[in-house]
């Protein structure tokens, strides 16, 4: 993981490569954890939705292709 940042001063054109501060490193860890949690929840919801859809198809005795055909 890159521990540096690039800062471009638009008034002078100077480009600096600097070390991240401790706060920035901590924020990055927190952001990655938050994204991972959101992604896990999203995947959980997708699985639940797929299972619910399959349960309806099973109750109706239809395959996914037949349902798609009916729904146009």
């Amino acid at each position, binding site marked *: 993981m890159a521990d540096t*940042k690039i*800062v471009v001063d638009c008034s002078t054109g100077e480009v600096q490569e600097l070390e991240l501060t401790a706060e920035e490193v901590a924020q990055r860890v927190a952001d990655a954890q938050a994204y991972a949690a959101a992604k896990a929840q999203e995947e959980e919801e997708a699985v639940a939705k797929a299972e619910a859809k399959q349960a309806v198809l099973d109750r109706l005795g239809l395959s996914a292709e037949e349902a798609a055909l009916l729904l146009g």
Partner: protein
Amino acid sequence: MATYVEIASVTVGSGGSAYVEFTSIPNTYTDLLVKFSARSARTNDAGGSDGKLEFNGVTTGYSSRMLLQQGGAYSGTSSTLFYFVNSNNSTSNTFGNMEVYIPNYAGSGYKSVSIDAVDENNASSAYGVLTAGLWSNTAAITSLRLTDNNGGYMQYTTAYLYGIKKD
């Protein structure tokens, strides 16, 4: 007819970078445009690496509505100004493309932001996202930061900042 002027540009070197930031942005233009070509060092999702755009070093006051595509299309909201670029286990030597447009960046109202980003992956997993964003802050934008939320941006990632002036 509007004039586009390159304010500054940068290319990430061999060490990579967690983020790229433009500071001391002059207030003499009408709008800002960013052209960003990026690859993240992330390797656990070939579909792309998410990032966020922030202004003036401020981490709050952001909101966005997104239209995303990855296999199928869906919409969502976020408390960040959200985008995707290529991750490092996507198609090799390939970088995501993004454009950011910020009208009236130096004005005294809230700042609207339009982001159009695509993760160029020659596979079934690839993100495209259109983000309609808002920074609920009346300060003029004087700095702009593009942060990768995962492994950081890799070498040859480029960012170009343009000022657009109404003639």
